[in-house]
């Protein structure tokens, strides 16, 4: 098994975060759900990785897997997760718990349900801080107010005692970020941080996250189904489909030279402010696969417009994640590289950019 690392990673050095063939499977009554099925990537501090995919592609599960929220009782995990030289999959639950919130923190989608409705925003931030820092409640409270101020909440000394439902959507997301930042984590995972927000607020939150990442010099993973968000923030982009990585490369590569038909589809459905609604959306046909009954061969083949060009391989053989080009760009596709590049250049790209 070759290591799959970030295109910008110096192979001689140990990366800050590295996943090696991570698998997270859930046994259920209806069968084994392979949510994450052999995921590998790496990330340095100060850099941002965007993980992109439809819902059910395994992107959220992998991030929760990094945080160690799954354990032996409800999931089977294999592979390796290295965080700053420490392996997490084999580490004790308590060890991982000690890292959670302190060295790695998460910003969840839909902060209304992600924050406890019965506790004030302040109390929840204070709680997060005091788990890992033995300080008095008073000190923690001051810290919470500072954090709220830093994420741009007006009158933080008053709002600290409000309940989540008393905040607006954007404010709640800011508070959520404040909570995640409470222990200055080195790894920050944001799961769909802007999905529940309207467009103008989205932009504010993305700005905020960029600023904060710069300030804290943390590694940031942004999980989203929206390539637009990735384009704004990410250094690297990883596209997931059916629990597997299907394309991985620098943001520039992925946006300029995407090689996987699914990525093309994602790009096609990316909203752009410079185009009219009806023209810019090229939705991917069909629905994401069931993670119990992943289609044999290439998981994407039922939806792939170019499946016939693989000579039948699409239904029988699972394609490997292979390097393409020179810049560490990897793709999991049976189509020959030149065919892919040709299709991109001749059929897809003009379609996306041109005014049809």
């Amino acid at each position, binding site marked *: 098994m070759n290591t799959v690392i970030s295109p910008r990673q110096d192979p001689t050095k140990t990366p800050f975060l590295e996943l090696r063939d991570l698998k997270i499977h859930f046994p259920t009554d209806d069968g084994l759900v392979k949510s994450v099925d052999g995921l590998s990537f790496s990330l340095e501090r100060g850099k941002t990785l965007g993980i992109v995919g439809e819902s059910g592609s395994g992107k959220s599960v992998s991030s929760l897997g990094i945080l160690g*929220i799954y354990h032996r009782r409800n999931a089977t995990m294999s592979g390796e997760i290295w965080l700053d030289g420490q392996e997490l999959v084999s580490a004790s639950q308590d060890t991982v718990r*000690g890292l*959670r919130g302190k060295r790695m*923190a998460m910003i*969840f989608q839909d902060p209304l349900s*992600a924050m406890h409705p019965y506790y004030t925003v302040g109390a929840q931030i204070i709680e997060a801080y005091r*788990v890992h820092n033995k300080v008095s409640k008073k000190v923690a409270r001051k810290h919470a107010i500072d954090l709220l101020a830093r994420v741009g909440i007006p009158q933080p000394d008053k709002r600290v005692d409000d309940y989540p439902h008393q905040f607006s959507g954007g404010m709640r997301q800011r508070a959520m970020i404040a909570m995640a930042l409470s222990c200055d984590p080195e790894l920050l995972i944001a799961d769909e941080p802007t999905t529940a927000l309207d467009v103008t607020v989205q932009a504010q939150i993305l700005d905020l996250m960029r600023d904060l990442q710069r300030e804290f010099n943390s590694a940031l993973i942004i999980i989203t189904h929206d390539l637009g968000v990735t384009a704004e923030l990410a250094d690297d982009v990883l596209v997931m489909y059916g629990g597997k990585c299907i394309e991985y490369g620098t943001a520039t590569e992925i946006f300029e030279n995407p090689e996987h038909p699914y990525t093309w589809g994602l790009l096609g459905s990316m909203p752009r402010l410079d185009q009219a609604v009806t023209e810019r959306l090229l939705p991917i046909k069909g629905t994401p696969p069931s993670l119990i009954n992943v289609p044999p061969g290439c998981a994407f083949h039922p939806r792939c417009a170019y499946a016939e060009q693989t000579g039948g391989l699409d239904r029988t053989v699972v394609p490997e994640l292979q390097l393409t080009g020179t810049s560490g760009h990897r793709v999991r596709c049976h189509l020959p590289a030149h065919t892919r590049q040709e299709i991109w250049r001749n059929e897809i790209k003009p379609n996306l950019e041109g005014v049809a």
Partner: protein
Amino acid sequence: MVTYIIRRTLGALLILFVVSLATFLIFFGLPRLAGATPETFAARYVGKTADAQTQQMYAEKLGFYDPLYEQYGRWIGAVFTGTEYDYGTGVEQCEAPCFGYSFRTNQPVWEDLLDRLPVTGSLALGASIIWLLTGVAVGVLSALRRGSFFDRAAMTGALAGVSLPPYFTGLMFLYFFSYKMGVTAPGASYTPFADDPAEWAYNLILPWITLALLNAAAYARFTRAGMLDTMGEDFVRTARAKGLTEGVVVTKHGLRAALTPIITIFGMDVGLLLGGAILTESTFSLKGLGYFAIDAIGKQDFPQIMGVTMFAAFFVVVANLIVDLLYAVVDPRVRLS
């Protein structure tokens, strides 16, 4: 808040009014339709040897000849403003809330009810503590060890528990613990707590367990379901992501949210119970409000029937109100308006 309470109180009064009217009609109006006359009503309360004239005089005295609405009006008037009671050689003032005097024993109903309340109250108190603690504990453990042997055993047991009629378990308990082993009281002769706490508990232990068993089983099921729901909530995931220990996650985040609906059901159940645990009280001949109610119905003692029904409905309505107010305290999202 204040307007909310006022509004709810008015609503509660309306419900009580409807209940009282329905009770009155069922016990007084319906028999009239079925052919009962004022004299036949009176005949229940005068001695066996009373002749027609005495029956008439008694019917007159109790006002059975008046139109039904007048009789009802008199009853409800007494509740609010009190009434006078002629005991033969003089008149006694019955202060509001006056539920009148028993047609058979001439005892003021209100005093009778207050007499029985400690019995039912003791039963409800002991049983509810037992079932709340055991039910919630079993439910939480089951939810946390979902699918484990404990979970399956506990849930099978709980399903069996809710399927057991309390009079059956009560009787079996009486047979084994009282008759065979002689370790508990045969049936329950109530001893006030203040008189002798040990005797109080000794007499009530079987009724407590009988009543608690049924409810503990139901609460275990509620709690487990609630815990499974809340443990799957996003905020629990958040709590874990903060690095909180599993104990804190379960109790402070999971249980806290799961308990809220349990508290609601608990409040309603206790309210319902305070009106009398008819089946448990009958099984153990425990002379509480439920037993009193059955007795009053059997003897057709109208003021007692009205009194005990209103008492029971009152507790349900008040419990409802308290539960709603409590909900607002427990759940900051709930606004009373």
